[in-house]
């Protein structure tokens, strides 16, 4: 694999729209061409090279390329948007929309990511070693067809509405999540450490697994007995889990919620 290294220079005080940071876009471009890719901030347009030093060896195909971002880019948004192959390693934290609409490849973030990361992902993997903001793996505003494939792993915590409208794929959050995890979920798997409340609100399909307890459960979930060492959506879990079906506030709800006892 070849590597292109982006070293952040001074970042703007507000959001830097850099959807060009993607293996698909870098592929087949020289270092000079990569530096010249457009970025947007406020109502202005600039070049990627204005905000990053670009070095390394570009590749012809996205799948043969690793992009490394050396350090924090907490104002940079849309990294890896629509990416289909290759790898991005962010050695720090990034802003909103990391990996939105991604269909393949892998993004590793050593720090945190902002809100709407992994939005409507279709494939590939987003691995966050820190924490994620609200709307992790959710759908775009107004859209009812959410994340449909791929895998998101967050080692820290995540905010509200994780996996909203989830329609396939898997999301794992090791730490805690805020309110409305898996809201309106239809398919797929959502695994979280602990949750506050309203888990699975309006879910009609798929499965949610909570490993360290929910503070308050919605009344639309009916208990369906205990299960030991269950296999859920192809993943194995150890221990005894209380199983619920719901959310019966919806018609024909076929969602399943497992809470570790």
């Amino acid at each position, binding site marked *: 694999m070849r590597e292109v290294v982006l070293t952040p220079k001074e970042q703007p005080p507000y959001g830097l729209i850099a959807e060009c940071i993607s293996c698909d876009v870098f592929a087949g471009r020289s270092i000079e061409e990569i530096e010249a890719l457009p970025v947007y901030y406020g109502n202005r347009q600039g070049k990627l090279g204005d905000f990053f030093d670009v070095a390394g060896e570009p590749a012809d195909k996205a799948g043969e390329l690793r992009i490394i971002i050396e350090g924090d880019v907490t104002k940079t948004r849309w990294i890896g948007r629509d990416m289909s192959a290759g790898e991005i390693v962010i050695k720090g934290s990034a802003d909103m929309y990391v990996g939105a609409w991604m269909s393949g490849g892998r993004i590793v973030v050593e720090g945190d990511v902002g809100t709407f990361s992994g939005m409507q992902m279709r494939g590939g993997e987003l691995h966050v070693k820190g924490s994620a903001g609200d709307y992790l793996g959710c*759908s*775009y*505003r*107004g*859209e*009812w067809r959410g994340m449909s494939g791929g895998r998101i792993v967050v080692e820290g915590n995540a905010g509200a509405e994780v996996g909203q409208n989830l329609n396939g794929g898997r999301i794992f959050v090791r730490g805690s999540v805020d309110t409305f995890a898996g809201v309106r979920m239809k398919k797929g798997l959502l695994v979280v450490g602990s949750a506050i409340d309203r888990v699975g609100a309006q879910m009609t399909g798929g499965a949610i697994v909570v490993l360290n307890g929910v503070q308050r459960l919605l009344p639309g979930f009916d208990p369906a007995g205990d299960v030991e060492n269950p296999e859920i959506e192809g993943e194995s879990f150890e221990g005894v889990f209380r199983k619920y079906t719901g959310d019966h506030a919806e018609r024909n709800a076929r969602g399943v919620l497992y809470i570790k006892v």
Partner: protein
Amino acid sequence: MRLILRNGFVYDPLNGINGEKMDICIENGKIVEDVKDAKVIDCSGKVVMPGGVEIHSHIAGGKVNTGRIMRPEDHLKNVMPKTRLTRAANGYSTPSTFLTGYLYAKLGYTTAFTAAMPPLMARHTHEELHDIPMLDKGALTLMGNNWFVMRYLKRGDVELAAAFAAWLLRAAKGYAIKVVNPGGGEAWGWGRDVRNLDDPVPHFDITPREIITGLTRVNEMLSLPHSIHLHANNLGRVGNYLTTLETMELANGTKPARERQVVQLTHVQFHSYGGDSWRTFASEAESIAKAVNSKDNVIVDVGQVVFGDTTTMTADGPMEYYLSSLTGLKWSNRNIELETSPGVTPFIYSKRSPVAAVQWAIGLELALHIKDPLKVLLTTDHPNGAPFFRYPTIIAWLMSSRYREETMKEVHGAAQRNTTLATIDREYDFYEIAAVTRAGQAKSLGLAEKGHLGAGADADVAVYDINPEEVDPSRDYKLVEERFSATSYTIKDGEIVVKDGEIVKVVNGRTLYVDAKVDSELERELERDLDYYFKRFYSVNLANYPVQEVYLTRPTPIEVKTNVR
């Protein structure tokens, strides 16, 4: 500006010109016989038609904006940055106002009527129309569930109903009488609908039949430029073709006050459904077409479906509720006081869906089974069947049975089994395309200076880069589709506004509205009623209701002499 469009193949059905090579001369925004010292545009090897006229498209008003608000995800599509001339724009099924104007102009359209304006929302509608550049505009004005109309017609006071309709058009700056699910909108206020022509409306005790025949009389007494524009009852219901056939009969025996039809049944694709459940859903397009062929005072527009994601929006509140309950998708509903109750919900016409496949076929069947192209106008009921900028695809389907066969292979087999489309060989020629996209619309709307290229017509012209001597649309349908998507030239009021598919000049069109005068004594009687009812029932003051001309771009009243009392 003086122009000569030299040596194009001209298609002008209203003047009987069918592909003759000739020059079109333009001076001071009008078509003229001859012109001197003019700039010459070489149109050899190109198709020249009058500017397109859109007769039914939801491009402005409360519903359209509700659609935009409800569907932020739709604004991710068609994102266009601003240019030196054009504004930033976005939206697919709910395009922004500016984008609406630009896209129509690129298709060669120069006039468009928004399909359903609630009078109470007229100011808002005109504010949106104000921001739609490139086009002459007008608004079909909703009256089929209006309390005044229903009251006057119930007690048989057609004169007062006519006086009210004339006043309402003037107040709302509207162009024609639009009737949507007559009676059903009012019944929806009580959680009900009307399901046949004799189903009485709660509290008004009037029937859809009485509303339709009453407003038909009103329209002809007022001698309005357009006929009544009727969205019949039971839209989108299985087996509704019987209601549609019965509704057509209501025009029997009425003589139009002008040279046009007595009723335009709109988006009739949605009203040509047979079967008795969604499982047995089938086309009755042939029955509808037969009825249209046999009548001389009824025309239809198609309401063609094109596969994809869209937003449905109508003044037919109960129908939108029904649709959203079938799909489970988000839904918006409103009650416009004494006037109407519109609804909005997204819809996806999937190629794999048997229902959508049949709907797609029905629209084309109608266009192909109806013999006279001036009686079947091309619409998608934008955005209900598809966004209007899918017209080029529909034109290509109409011109190529091979293209229809290709599409048929990609869609659910129900299109083959439950419709007659596969048995139809007919292919439109350019003359017929001109008829169903501009000439028929202008004739139906009573726009004497539009839809043709005779001397005295508005100099609204579209030039397409297709050489009819070289291109065989039946085989080269992809080329036809591409070339109808972007004109070589669009000319508006004698100015070149689009060149080679790009906007080169942004102009503001006229806003056409009808100013019909009735007897002054009748008007005073009406005013007493308006005073009383506005105080009692409306949330706005009567004085604040009429829309001032300042809201309109280039306000253009069409004065109408009526024979009311």
